[in-house]
């Protein structure tokens, strides 16, 4: 099930003939990160951007990209080519060095995160399983704030500066609840290593005992990556485009890519920490390579995919039904084939992780298609008056539970579930009343 | 032990001296804050190096370094609060011109 060799092993092997065997691990990790960037992140982000635009199109009853490649798959690449062609403009009074550097300060941390994330079961699917993986994660993600602030400052543009200041305040504020929520899984798992946390979720995903923490993490992470409804640093309609208004060409493209890499990252982290990583629901105990599991996955996927596409076809909101409904079956079949092959070659844990991640990514796009943007003071008061206290209570309850065995965390989450149920009921009744009137 | 302990000590000493110079010579309060952070970092290098080389089974130095980091964070927050207050009242933060008691 494990790949016979690890990425780190490959890098070290490649360095050996050069007489650099004892090279410090730091350099090895950097090289690893570079390889991961080229082989994994760039394609993933490319596809993700396409997928996002398609999904947004679906939500907004339009087609999304259609021109470049089949169904516009190559649109992102075309965009990147275009951005490379564009002139790299520097504003006259910009601080040139800082201006040139800032996009990298945003993009590089977004990529460095992937060093510690276990994509699948076994050493082969994680670059370096740091014993302090979770702390590393929070540390690296906190760097991108600097890039945003300096980008805003160096552009010598008032709108950019406002965007930079906004994001400084926003990122610093939401780091707190995010970290508080992230403390939950290691409390239960007893380790800071991400692989260890996933392994600890074999029987129960942490989202069940820590639903509140999951929600806090997800909301705070949305704010951390400046995603709608918290995309104030780059609010088009208020700050033009915020900190990146003066950027053009590939420097703008780096911000753009970093943003999408980040939205993938938070979903991946949520999957690893709360949604059980590569574990299947109720099947955590089973060995993943067994044929039954593989087939069960294939069946589930085919059903899911087919169902989604069937609904899509029934609604026919974004295309004419007759021309496109075959796409549903084709994509379901392709998906099933991928899962089958992956199951055969022992890749299935990666597929499961990625499928969970993409479900979360879909939630992100859903939010993007639905929500307006909050105001900066509302953002702040929500962070400090709602998320931080909730995060503290959640953390205290979990810590108390971990220390004494009294299930305070469970009680808290039970309360939370009741509250969410009540909310849903309320919303549903209101909706029902609404449709009865109109 | 490939790197002698003295290397770390020398590096930390130079870094500390640079920090001292900055704290004494800069006029801007925020620049002085940054110099102080440099000095704290120099101390931390020493502590961690000692922890690694002298007491590798106890790591006392690392614990001290952690406390220093905590205090550095507190110091930065309070220091910037002070700087902002001064700026609000005087519209500048040049320390050699802050002489409220003199007048």
């Amino acid at each position, binding site marked *: 099930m494990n790949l016979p060799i690890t990425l780190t092993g490959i890098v070290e092997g490649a360095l050996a003939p050069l007489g650099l065997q004892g090279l410090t691990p730091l350099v090895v990790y950097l090289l690893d990160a570079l390889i991961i960037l080229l082989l994994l992140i760039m394609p993933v982000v490319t596809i993700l951007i396409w997928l996002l635009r398609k999904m947004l199109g679906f939500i907004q009853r339009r087609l999304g990209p259609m021109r470049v490649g089949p169904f516009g798959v190559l649109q992102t690449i075309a965009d990147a080519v275009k951005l490379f062609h564009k002139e790299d403009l520097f504003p006259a009074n910009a601080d040139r060095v800082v201006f040139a550097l800032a996009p990298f300060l945003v993009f590089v941390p977004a990529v460095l995160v992937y060093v510690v994330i276990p994509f699948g079961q076994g050493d082969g699917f994680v670059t370096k399983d740091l014993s302090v993986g979770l702390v590393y994660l929070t540390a690296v993600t906190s760097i991108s704030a600097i890039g945003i602030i300096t980008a805003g400052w160096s552009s010598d543009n008032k709108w950019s500066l406002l965007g930079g200041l906004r994001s400084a305040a926003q990122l610093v504020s939401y780091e707190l609840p995010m970290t508080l929520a992230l403390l939950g899984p290691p409390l239960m798992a007893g380790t800071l290593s991400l692989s260890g946390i996933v392994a600890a979720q074999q029987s129960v995903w942490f989202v069940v005992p820590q639903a509140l923490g999951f929600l806090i993490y997800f909301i705070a992470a949305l704010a951390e990556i400046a995603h709608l409804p918290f995309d104030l640093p780059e609010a088009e*309609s208020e700050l033009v485009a915020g900190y990146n208004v003066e950027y053009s060409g590939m420097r703008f493209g780096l911000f753009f890519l970093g943003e999408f890499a980040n939205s993938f990252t938070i979903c991946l982290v949520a999957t690893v920490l709360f949604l059980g990583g590569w574990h299947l629901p109720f099947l955590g105990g089973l060995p993943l390579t067994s044929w039954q599991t593989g087939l069960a996955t294939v069946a589930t996927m085919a059903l899911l995919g087919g169902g989604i596409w069937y609904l899509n076809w029934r609604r026919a909101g974004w295309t004419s039904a007759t021309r496109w409904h075959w796409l549903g079956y084709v994509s379901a079949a392709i998906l099933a084939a991928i899962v089958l092959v992956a199951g055969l070659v022992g890749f299935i844990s990666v597929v499961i992780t990625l499928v969970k991640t993409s479900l979360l990514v879909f939630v992100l796009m859903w939010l993007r298609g639905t929500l307006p943007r909050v105001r900066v003071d509302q953002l702040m008061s929500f962070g400090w008056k709602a998320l931080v206290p909730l995060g503290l209570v959640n953390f205290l309850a979990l810590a108390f539970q971990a220390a004494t065995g009294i299930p305070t965390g469970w009680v808290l989450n039970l309360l939370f579930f009741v509250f969410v149920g009540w909310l849903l009921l309320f919303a549903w009744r209101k909706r029902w009343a609404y449709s009865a009137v109109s | 032990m490939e790197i002698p302990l003295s290397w770390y000590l020398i590096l930390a000493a130079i870094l500390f001296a640079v920090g001292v110079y900055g704290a004494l010579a800069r006029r801007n309060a925020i620049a002085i804050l940054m110099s102080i952070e440099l000095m704290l970092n120099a101390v931390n290098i020493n502590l961690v190096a000692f922890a690694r080389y002298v007491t590798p089974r106890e790591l006392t130095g690392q614990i001290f370094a952690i406390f220093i980091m905590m205090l550095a964070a507190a110091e930065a927050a309070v220091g910037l609060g002070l700087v902002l207050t001064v700026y609000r009242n005087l519209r500048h933060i040049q320390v050699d011109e802050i002489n409220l008691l003199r007048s």
Partner: protein
Amino acid sequence: MATETKQTSEPDGVLRLGGPGLAAEPTGDIHEIETDHLEVSMGPQHPSTHGVLRLKVKLDGEWVTEVQPEIGYLHRGVEKIAENRTYFQFLTITDRLDYVAAMACNAAYAVAVEKLAGLTVPPRAELCRVIVQELDRIASHLVSVGTYGLDLGATSPFIYAFRDRETILDLLEMVCGARLTYSYIRVGGVARDLPEGEWRTRFRQFLDEFPPMLDEQDTLLSENEIFLLRTRGVGVLPPEVAVNYGTSGPVLRGSGVAYDVRRSKPYGLYPQLDFNVVTRPTGDCLARYQVRVEEMRQSVKILRQCDQLLDEIPPGEVLAKGARGVKPAAGEAYASVESPRGEMGVYLISDGSNKPYRLKWRSPSFVNLSVLSAIGRGWKVADLVAIIGSIDPVFGDVDR
């Protein structure tokens, strides 16, 4: 004018404007940390100023301490052009004023010339006028409401609104061949009768399909907590201020003043039609938004009645005799219609020739926009965007 409105002024007669931070003193200390004041220029290329509006904004951190609209980027001298065109020729220019609701501009001009020249419009033409005006009102409010969502960061309502607007534009295209610059309502009537057959079917289909779609789109915004947070209590325009500035349309009715030209100074077929003048008492951005949405529902109600009237009033003459070469006697006239943005009035002076001696266009967007510097202070930049969007100026109309 109906003034049975809620008085929101303080007992001492001083009007309190602006946000919570400004309650005590309009330019006082409204910040937590003293920051440098920024003077920024919003527009004319700013994406949320609805055209070529430029605002000189003074910011204290995020707070707006002063806002001054700068207009004129789209000035074309329309009123002067009118003096060199015959009454009939000038009509096409009016399309270019409020280009989001060109039917109302056509109507305002036509009504004024008819009043000046004493022309009588055939009943069938009056019916056609009401139908296209109400359709155009819906289309215009859809643009306003959709872009309002966009201003606040919600992208989907915009797309949904334009989907429905597209249906209307198709209908209007079938009527007059144009989708934006209609020139359909002519002096003395309309260009031609409404088409029969397929148009009628699609018209009725629209009346059936639009209300649920509007509900869906409205749900996306007005049942969204974030949208409510951004609009409720924001940019409050007290009725006194609204009246004093001469605002009209949804901006005025959002402040609780029930003034609608269709009711207060009736013209055309409107006295026979049953509809409500929509008002909201609160005067905030949400009220103005709600007024627009509710007005669309009222327009559908009017159109339903018109659909019946189409069967009752037989087709026939749609252009008054002698309208083409109209030569009013020396004199003056002022007439106005209710455009989607408010009272759109035309003041005409005739010297007896076939060209206007003087034309003055009372454009609702211009007047409504002037209230911005009064209610824009004391809010945050983001609120300013919300306030501009709720005022909904169209720059062809503001700058003329």
